[in-house]
């Protein structure tokens, strides 16, 4: 894809564009040809506004006010609501993607390349995106859609090419194939099915959250209001929701990146921890994986060995007495790399040099090998390929089987339905009542998620707010 978009130069071969061989040497040239691309990892300046970011990507940006108006028009026409004057750092992941899409649409592309666009969207948002894409296709724009979610390919695409390890392994008509047969072509082997665990009885409560409220951080943050839930030993608890409804705030409050009052609002095995920082909570057995890999779960400019020190220095005794034992850190990094099949040039490779999926495996592995009592994970498989996603899901289930209380915060509903025991939905900083995953329908969850769009009045929220559950 990067070759098509002019970011990389191919060594050999040719590319025909409208029957004419072309070789774009940079993205500008590709854009002039009419090729637009929405990356899986966004290229946005966080400190600039939406309009400024879009202006930077245009050949001849119009005057600011005109541009803002155009952004509003295009975003509304395609059902991608966007405020041109908001600063990007305050946007959720889903909203940032809209910026990228609108930026491409403003250039009237003839070919739109989408790289894993739905990994951050709700079912409703996905439907809307598909509508947008179908409309674009009807208007004569070709769409090249990259995804590992095969039902999406089936729902959207007219033809599919399957790639594995940099080679084309097959072409097929997605309307004829089943998702399973395509998945097998993709992985090149029989697909491993997740072993779903049976029903379990009540277990001791490992993590108890009771009346957790956190004020909004900044004008665009989401305040958490009266969040209550309990996760028992061996249980996987899912939290679904549209991007930007308080997931980040909740995961940070649980992990200890932000303290919360009263300290009893969060308890680990009965012990109040609201006043403790992340490392003190880790000492009590709570490990976490934040949503952002680079710069949050790992320091990009540091080696994988050094990155073990972030969260494992005390639990795995890598720095006794405050002195770093480089050898122990390397050994632990090597163990993570080996056990979780991370592709990296050894333990001295910089975290930033790993691909998104490999870094995710590394980060998840680093936390899981610490055998936590309570495990909080946000977006465990965002941007990870199908094989690795299955491996991470399996690891989460094994962890739970060994008695860990697992909380999965994700925008990927399929994932939550597949691995969780109970499920709750977060909307505008409030958490719905938790329900057993087995007895819940996608439509119901969709409705709860969509509370954002004004369907539910305050009466319903009252019920949600005071719910206290016992596993």
């Amino acid at each position, binding site marked *: 894809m990067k070759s098509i978009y002019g970011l990389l130069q191919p060594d050999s071969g040719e590319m025909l564009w409208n029957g004419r061989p072309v070789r774009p040497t940079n993205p500008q040239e590709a854009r002039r040809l009419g090729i637009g691309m929405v990356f899986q990892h966004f290229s946005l*300046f966080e400190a600039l506004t939406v309009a400024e970011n879009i202006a930077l990507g245009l*050949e001849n940006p119009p005057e600011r006010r005109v541009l803002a108006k155009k952004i509003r028009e295009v975003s509304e026409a395609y059902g991608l609501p966007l405020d041109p004057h908001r600063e990007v750092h305050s946007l959720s992941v889903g909203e940032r993607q809209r910026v990228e899409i609108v930026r491409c649409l403003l250039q009237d592309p003839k070919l739109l390349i989408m790289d894993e666009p739905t990994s951050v969207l709700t079912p409703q948002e996905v439907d809307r995106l598909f509508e947008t894409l179908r409309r674009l296709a009807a208007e004569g724009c070709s769409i090249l859609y990259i995804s590992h979610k095969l039902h999406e390919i089936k729902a959207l695409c007219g033809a599919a090419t399957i790639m594995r390890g940099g080679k084309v392994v097959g072409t097929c008509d997605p309307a004829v194939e089943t998702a399973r047969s395509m998945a097998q072509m993709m992985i090149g082997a029989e697909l491993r099915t997740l072993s779903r665990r049976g029903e379990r009885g009540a277990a001791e409560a490992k993590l108890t959250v009771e009346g957790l409220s956190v004020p909004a951080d900044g004008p665009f943050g989401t305040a958490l209001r009266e969040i209550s839930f309990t996760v028992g030993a061996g249980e996987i608890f899912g939290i679904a929701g549209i991007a930007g409804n308080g997931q980040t705030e909740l995961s940070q409050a649980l992990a200890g990146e932000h303290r919360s009052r009263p300290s009893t609002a969060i308890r680990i095995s009965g012990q109040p921890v609201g006043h403790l*920082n*992340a490392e003190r909570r880790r000492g009590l057995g709570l490990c976490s994986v934040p949503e952002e890999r680079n710069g949050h779960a790992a320091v990009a400019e540091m080696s994988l060995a050094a990155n073990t*020190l972030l*969260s494992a220095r005390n639990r795995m005794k890598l720095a006794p007495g405050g002195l770093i034992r480089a050898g122990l850190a390397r050994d632990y990094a090597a163990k993570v790399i080996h056990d979780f099949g991370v592709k990296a040039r050894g333990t001295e490779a910089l975290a930033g040099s790993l691909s998104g999926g490999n870094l995710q495996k590394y980060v998840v592995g680093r936390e899981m090998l610490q055998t936590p009592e309570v495990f909080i994970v946000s977006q465990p498989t965002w941007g990870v390929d199908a094989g690795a996603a299955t491996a991470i899901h399996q690891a989460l289930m094994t962890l739970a089987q060994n008695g860990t209380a697992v909380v999965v915060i994700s925008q990927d509903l399929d994932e939550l339905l597949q691995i969780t025991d109970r499920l709750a939905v977060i909307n505008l900083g409030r958490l719905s009542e938790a329900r057993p995953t087995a007895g819940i329908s996608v439509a119901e969850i969709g409705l709860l998620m969509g509370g954002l769009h004004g369907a539910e009045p305050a009466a319903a929220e009252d019920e949600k707010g005071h719910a206290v559950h016992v596993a």
Partner: protein
Amino acid sequence: MVWLTPLIAIALTVASGYLLFLALGLDPAETLYQFLIAPIESFYGWTELGVKAAPLILIATGLAIGFRANVWNIGAEGQLTMGAIAAGAVALAFWGHEGWWILPAMCVAGALGGLAYAAIPAFLKTRFDVSEILTSLMLTYVAALVLSILVFGPWKDPDGYNFPQTRMFTDAAVLPILVEGTRLHLGVPIALLVAVAAWFLMGRTVIGFQIRVVGQAPAAARFAGFSRKRVTWFSLLLSGALAGLAGTFEAAGPIGQLIPQLTPGYGFTAIIVAFLGRLHPIGIIAAGLVMALSYIGGENAQVSAGLPQAATGVFQGMLLFYLLAADVLVRYRLRLTAGQPKPSPKPVTVS
């Protein structure tokens, strides 16, 4: 390549110096010789280099630790002055007394003086989020005026013919000389030891790791349970204490009393030293020697070639300028885009 830029910068500075001297109507080769080579042709020259480099290394080591955590202490000059005042207070209080403990007490007082003065920006930064760049810089001028009040007023030498200076410190309050016939004092090896200790702190301890993580990825620091406020306090207090210690060594070493012109801008030059040394303690030792040479060479060239005093400042300024420029140009490429009305670079974030 990043390690090469200081050398490129030094080479460019020397080349520009050549042109500068030519423009001033001096013999450029001879002036450069007086500036850069003559000062270190003798053993005595090397000891002088050490004497000048010691305060620079001491201060720059502290500053570099803060810079790694994105804490920008620009006011080491003021902390140095306050440290010298505190040490001077001890020396004057026990003027004429004997006792091995006077000198250590001065060092402690000097370090505490600089530390306390750096605590002001640290408090304002962590409590009210006031830029430490501004507060620490402005406090520098306050410190210089406090020193003036003291040496023009209550602390003035009663037998000093009304010159603005304190009494010369007595023997128990003066750093011992290491080599007879030179000014090489005990502060020089201490500065080197501090740099090595800082190397260990930054490379091998969790505290150093914490400082680097806070500087490189604040969100990851929160995830790891590191507190940005604690690191801000730690690095400001540490750099303040080291600057105060440097002030103590100046007052108790080569100067031997308090005078209004206690420092030729060591606190500011140390910022250049920290960057020239790539914020690495061992690099800082080398960079400290280079900058010390520019001080001594500047004086030498004033005497022998009639170079104006400002030339030293110009030299140091050019060095920092070339260093920063080389740093940028090593990482980015300039491309002339003739014929294109509006180059629009593709935005790339490195986050």
